[in-house]
């Protein structure tokens, strides 16, 4: 009751494939193209995934944002534009007194013309507090950031973003110079490091002034946002609950929206993961066609090798062994195609990164292994029908076929 040795079995299979070299190569190529597409597309998807997550998580996962207004079913709340129940600097201060909260920034944003150094530029103006560099994780290049003045009586200091500094003062000294923003004069006390683009927004094209000054400048009563960092020892959800309690007691209603970075990253992670899988499955269509290719070629092989099957049966090969033999061939075709496809996909995504450095790609081993397993599965499924037909052949009939 001996069984054919695995190595011999393998040899016989490979021998079958090599005898029809061109045919096997073409069939495997079909699978290779499919797997290559899946790997390349998931690499791009994963790359984008990592890129976006990295952009967001540079703020740290212990960031929480509070906006005025209750976000309804979709999109941004109108309360960001105007509202009757403002979010105030005092709200921000109250949140700062929570034990778990490390830093708080009260944010107002607007668009204004900045004049200085004999030049002018329309740019984004942020009204913020002293904690902004820590909360937003941006570094000061020269001078210092806004001082920790009393919020309602802040001095007229300005800190320039990298680009604004360049545009207004070029290579000359900016520290100590004066800039005019919407009729008021500010003294430049620092400039920021270049941060580049963040998801399409040029955050270097900005000027930072005290919150209260910006509110006056833009004639606004409400903050647009309060950003805060909490101690990593407590969970975002717990801190968010604390914040909710504080604001609710101050406003007597829940007219604000709390977004934790953790939650946001989670949602983003989910969305991007789904996107990657969706794009990968589009590539999977080719794999399906490749599977049909294996099915066809294996059916042809069973047809052509009917005589051989009859002989094997006459030699005492069991039905199940014939089944395994042809299944083995199908799986080998798919697996070899799969490996080549992995090479194609990984190489393709490398090439892509080289050609378009802006679009990151990242080959995740999880997807690579999944793709190869998928290829093998495709081979298995595509091989079942022909292999069953081969195994079901009557030995006498099969022998007569030659």
């Amino acid at each position, binding site marked *: 009751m*001996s069984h054919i*040795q695995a190595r011999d079995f393998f040899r016989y299979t490979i021998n079958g494939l090599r005898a029809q070299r061109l045919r096997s190569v073409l069939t495997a190529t079909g699978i290779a193209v499919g797997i290559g597409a899946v790997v390349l597309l998931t690499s791009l998807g994963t790359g984008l995934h990592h890129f976006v997550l990295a952009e967001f998580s540079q703020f740290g996962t212990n960031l929480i944002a509070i906006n005025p207004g209750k976000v309804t079913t979709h999109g941004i709340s109108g309360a960001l534009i105007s509202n009757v129940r403002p979010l105030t600097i005092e709200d921000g201060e109250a949140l700062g007194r929570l034990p778990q909260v490390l830093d708080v920034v009260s944010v107002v944003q607007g668009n204004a013309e900045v004049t200085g150094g004999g030049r002018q530029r329309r740019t984004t103006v942020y009204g913020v507090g002293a904690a902004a560099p820590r909360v937003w994780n941006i570094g000061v290049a020269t001078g210092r950031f806004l001082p920790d003045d009393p919020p309602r009586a802040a001095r007229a200091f300005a800190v320039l973003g990298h680009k604004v500094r360049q545009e207004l003062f070029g290579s000359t000294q900016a520290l100590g110079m004066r800039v005019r923003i919407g009729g008021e004069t500010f003294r430049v006390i620092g400039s920021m490091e270049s941060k580049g683009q963040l998801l399409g927004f040029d955050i270097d094209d900005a000027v930072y002034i005290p919150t209260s000054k910006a509110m006056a400048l833009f004639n606004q009563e409400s903050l647009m946002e309060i950003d805060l960092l909490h101690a990593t020892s407590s969970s975002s959800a717990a801190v968010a609950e604390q914040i909710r309690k504080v604001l609710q007691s101050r406003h007597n209603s829940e007219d604000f929206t709390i977004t934790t970075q953790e939650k946001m990253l989670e949602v983003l992670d989910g969305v991007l993961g789904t996107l990657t899988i969706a794009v990968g499955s589009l590539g999977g269509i080719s794999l399906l066609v490749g599977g049909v290719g294996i099915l066809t070629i294996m059916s042809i092989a069973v047809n052509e090798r009917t005589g051989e099957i009859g002989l094997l049966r006459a*030699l*005492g090969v069991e*039905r199940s062994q014939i089944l395994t033999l042809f299944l083995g061939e199908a799986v080998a075709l798919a697996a070899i195609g799969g490996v080549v496809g992995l090479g194609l996909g990984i190489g393709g995504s490398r090439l892509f990164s080289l050609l378009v450095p802006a679009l990151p790609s990242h080959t995740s081993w999880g997807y690579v292994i999944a793709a190869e397993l998928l290829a093998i599965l495709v081979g298995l499924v595509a091989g079942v029908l022909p292999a069953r037909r081969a195994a079901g052949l009557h030995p006498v009939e099969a022998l007569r076929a030659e």
Partner: protein
Amino acid sequence: MIQLQHIERVFQVGDEEVHALSDVTMSAESGEYIAIMGPSGSGKSSLLNILGLLDRPDGGSYELDGLRVSGLNEKEQARIRRHKIGFVFQFFHLVPRLTAFDNIALPLKLSGMTREERQTRVTAALSAFGLGNRAQHRPDQLSGGQRQRVAIARATIMQPSLILADEPTGNLDRHAGVEVAEILEELNHQGITLIMVTHDPDLGRRAHRRILMVDGRIDHDSSRTRT
């Protein structure tokens, strides 16, 4: 060693039933040399297929070495084919993409023998059948006689107790045919039961026992007339 009782084999062709074998009863002792003869379509191959467990009878029973094999399942029948029975066909049935060596080694591989063991046995078989310098040739590079010798080598490599040959010389010229017959007879001398279908009366005469088939029945059995 072989005991056939009332074997029936019926093929349904359209509306018609073709009785390839009807009420075939015969037995054979170990070491016999039997020639099955008869006109074309008389059921010779059908009988051989049933003897070789390649086909199941529609009726009757078959005992091989005291075992009722007609009732065995597919897997057990395959095992018996592998170990007890060797086939030789008119059209050789060699695997075209395998070399002579690999064709002969096939049954050994199927039974899970290691490479080293195979090597010695196949090499011995090759030289025994005068194919020593043909080991790496594929069937299309061999003559008909050489092909049939490879096929016989393959049929005997597992040292079966029964060799079934269906017109082994049908596709060979006279000289090669005699050569093949001599090889088979030599195997028979060594004690292997040999059952051979043939149209060649000369070849038939060389057998110790002749069975004549007509219309799916045993018309004449030389052993029975003798007794």
